[in-house]
């Protein structure tokens, strides 16, 4: 049996490609390039297998080797660092010479042996492949080597388990989930709730007018920080909602003890007004605050109006 011309052509096209790709693996600087070179070699090998009357093996080569194994390589490259490039300068003493010597020596020995050996005449697989290559292969695997097959299956399971075990990471710090986060916030005295949407408590369009919370106290964060620092935040007294006062007056009227505004004010007592924020250090507050007289923040200013 001699190879056909087509096979010869195929071989002589693929062989240099493979050798070049293998050299690419040897000399590539980036790992991904090396992986791609190996993939090239493997696919070419698949071609050669098919040409050598081993189609089953060719398909398995593509599916398992190229498709699974090399993909695995690429995934790991991703994990490890795809841009990690390897300098080609050798660090170990004499390793380069020994490596080249060894490899060349090995090549010479192998090629020499192969060249000098005498071979029986090639038989070819026409007869063996008569029931079909996969069938023939299957007959041998499940016939003679079924035990080996089972063992290899166990091996694969073991390998998978091994990978799990090897890459298992142990938690070194305790797991932080929602309850832990909330408890931490409480302990630190930080804001527990999310901030309200803008405009929920606003009483006024102006930026320097603080929003009032449900208790009537101004919310400091509603005024931009810069204004707060400059002391340009507006006092709340004049913009405070007087709904409470109106309600008290109405109730008193209903009870039959009407009171003047002045009496109600007296009965209510002093509503604490947030003091004007401390002015910024001297030299900075020459702004319009001096112009606007907002009454210094006492309740009387409001009633005087």
């Amino acid at each position: 049996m001699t190879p056909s011309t087509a096979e010869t052509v195929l071989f002589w096209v693929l062989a240099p490609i493979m050798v070049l790709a293998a050299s690419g693996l040897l000399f590539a600087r980036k790992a991904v390039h090396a992986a791609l070179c190996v993939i090239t070699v493997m696919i070419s090998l698949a071609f050669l297998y098919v040409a050598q009357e081993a189609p089953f093996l060719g398909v398995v080569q593509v599916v398992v080797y190229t498709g699974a194994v090399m993909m695995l390589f690429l995934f790991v490259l991703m994990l490890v660092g795809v841009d990690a490039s390897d300098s080609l300068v050798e660090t170990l003493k004499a390793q380069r010479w020994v490596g080249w010597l060894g490899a060349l020596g090995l090549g010479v020995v192998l090629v020499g042996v192969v060249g000098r050996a005498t071979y029986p005449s090639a038989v070819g697989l026409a007869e063996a492949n008569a029931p079909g290559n996969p069938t023939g292969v299957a007959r041998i695997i499940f016939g003679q080597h079924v035990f080996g097959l089972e063992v290899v299956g166990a091996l694969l399971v073991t390998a998978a388990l091994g990978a799990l075990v090897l890459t298992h990471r142990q938690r070194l710090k305790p797991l932080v989930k929602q309850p832990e986060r909330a408890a931490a916030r409480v302990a630190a005295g930080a804001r527990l709730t999310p901030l309200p949407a803008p405009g929920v408590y606003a009483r006024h369009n102006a930026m320097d007018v603080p929003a009032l919370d449900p208790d009537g106290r101004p919310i400091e964060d509603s005024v931009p920080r810069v204004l707060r620092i400059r002391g340009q935040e507006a006092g709340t007294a004049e913009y405070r909602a007087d709904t409470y006062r109106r309600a008290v007056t109405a109730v008193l009227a209903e009870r039959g003890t009407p009171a003047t505004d002045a009496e109600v004010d007296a009965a209510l007592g002093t509503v604490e007004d947030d003091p004007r924020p401390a002015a910024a250090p001297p030299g900075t507050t020459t702004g319009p605050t001096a112009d606007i007289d907002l009454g210094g923040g006492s309740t009387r200013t409001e009633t005087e109006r």
Partner: protein
Amino acid sequence: MTLTNYLVLSGILFSIGAATVLLRRNAIIVFMGVELMLNATNLALVTFSRLHGDLTGQVMAFFVMVVAAAEVVVGLAIIVSIFRTRKSASVDDINLLKS
């Protein structure tokens, strides 16, 4: 052309794979060199199976593939775990057995 050509090609690929193992420092590339060697062996096996007209060579090549797959799994797992602790994929950094 005879079947010997395939064998010579197999030998050359094997040697290149061996050179890769010896000369490259990145663990993953070294591993790929090993894979290349295995593949070269597979090629030789297939060629011999054709030469003798016996499919056993292909069966052997098949088994080699399976075992190689398992080996890659474990080997890469090792590389990953080493990388996690040492942050380096260089084979030369694993030299704690130096005496």
